């Protein structure tokens, strides 16, 4: 089983366009209108209390780590249980959840450090550490588990070498006794 990770920086504008399914050129005015709508009561100089009409949107760019858990042979680990541990508290789960149909899961780390991700399903699973650097912007390394990160050619060569070891053992013990 292995985990494939990728990071994405989600911006609110991007989210807005995604959810409205329209090109950014059309979404931008709408988005600005949405942002400024909170100012309208202030502009109207209405002294009566604005009941639940005043609204504002403040946004920040948030980093999201998305990973995909697959069994060997690229079969997704769907509905596998995910437990995420923050760098400061490796004992208590920081977030739990399940992967989707494609074995994907994403989370938004809020501090730099080594984030431990445990994916488990029916006794199979893995623990992977995802390092987040101090800027909190990019993942410094692609997390790798101890499993199946070799190319098929490498695996074949390793299998052949090991099998040759077994064959050598067999040949050694089938040798004919030689006279001294």
């Amino acid at each position: 089983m292995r985990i494939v990770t990728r990071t994405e920086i989600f911006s609110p504008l991007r989210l807005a366009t995604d959810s409205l399914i329209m090109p950014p050129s059309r979404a931008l005015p709408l988005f600005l209108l949405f942002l400024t709508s909170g100012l309208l009561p202030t502009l109207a100089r209405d002294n009566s209390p604005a009941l639940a009409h005043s609204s504002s949107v403040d946004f920040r760019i948030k980093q999201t780590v998305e990973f995909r858990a697959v069994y060997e042979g690229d079969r997704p680990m769907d509905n596998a249980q995910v437990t995420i541990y923050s760098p400061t508290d490796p004992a208590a789960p920081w977030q739990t959840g399940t992967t989707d149909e494609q074995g994907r899961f994403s989370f938004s780390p809020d501090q730099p450090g080594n984030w431990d991700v445990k994916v488990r399903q029916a006794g199979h699973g893995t623990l992977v550490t995802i390092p987040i650097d101090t800027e909190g912007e990019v993942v410094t390394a692609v997390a790798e588990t101890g499993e199946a990160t070799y190319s098929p050619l490498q695996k074949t060569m390793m299998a052949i070498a090991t099998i040759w070891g077994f064959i050598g053992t067999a040949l050694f013990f089938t040798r004919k006794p030689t006279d001294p």
Partner: protein
Amino acid sequence: MHIPDGLLPPQIMIGGYALTGGITWFSLRQIHRTSDPTAQLPKAALLTAGFFVLSLIHIPVPPTSIHLVLNGLMGIILGYYAFPAILIGLFFQAVMFGHGGLSSLGVNAVIMGLPSLLAYGLVQWGEGRAWGMWWQQTTRFGGGAIALFAAALLYVGLTLSTIAPDLNADLERAAIFAALAGYGIQSMIEGAFTVMAINFLERVKPEILQPMAGEPLRQE
């Protein structure tokens, strides 16, 4: 059904190693008692190679894919050599491809190796009875199927009893039982494969079917 590193509590890992040590000692003692302990080693080495490489070959069985274990066949052909052979095969699977893990090697050897000795005992017992060809074929099928299913039961029992407290126990239990159903189907496939392999070997090279030197599989 290879349990990876880090998913079982340490006392179970250590217990697995202790049990594996005991069974390996017992198996080696049985091997040492035969007239020529090294006579069967070439066969054991080649079957270990087969066991090692089988875990890389995925057979698609919709909606999932399986890889054959054939621990029953190992037991029937190798007798007491099967346990050390499986232990060595699992070691190389863990080191080379990360199937299972080094800390869980003992547990995995018990899960797959103990049922192979069970299959050996069952087929030895079955072949000793002259109850006809169908009986003989049934015990061979049973040897292959029961070995895999017993391994699956050990695996399921172990994973069910050690569900980590941070997991959703119901969800994990459902996933484990779904896996057990898959192993049920796999045990039928392995039983059928075992029958075919034993019958083939019996026809072309019957001397292979002497698990322990000086102790023929077929007691006629």
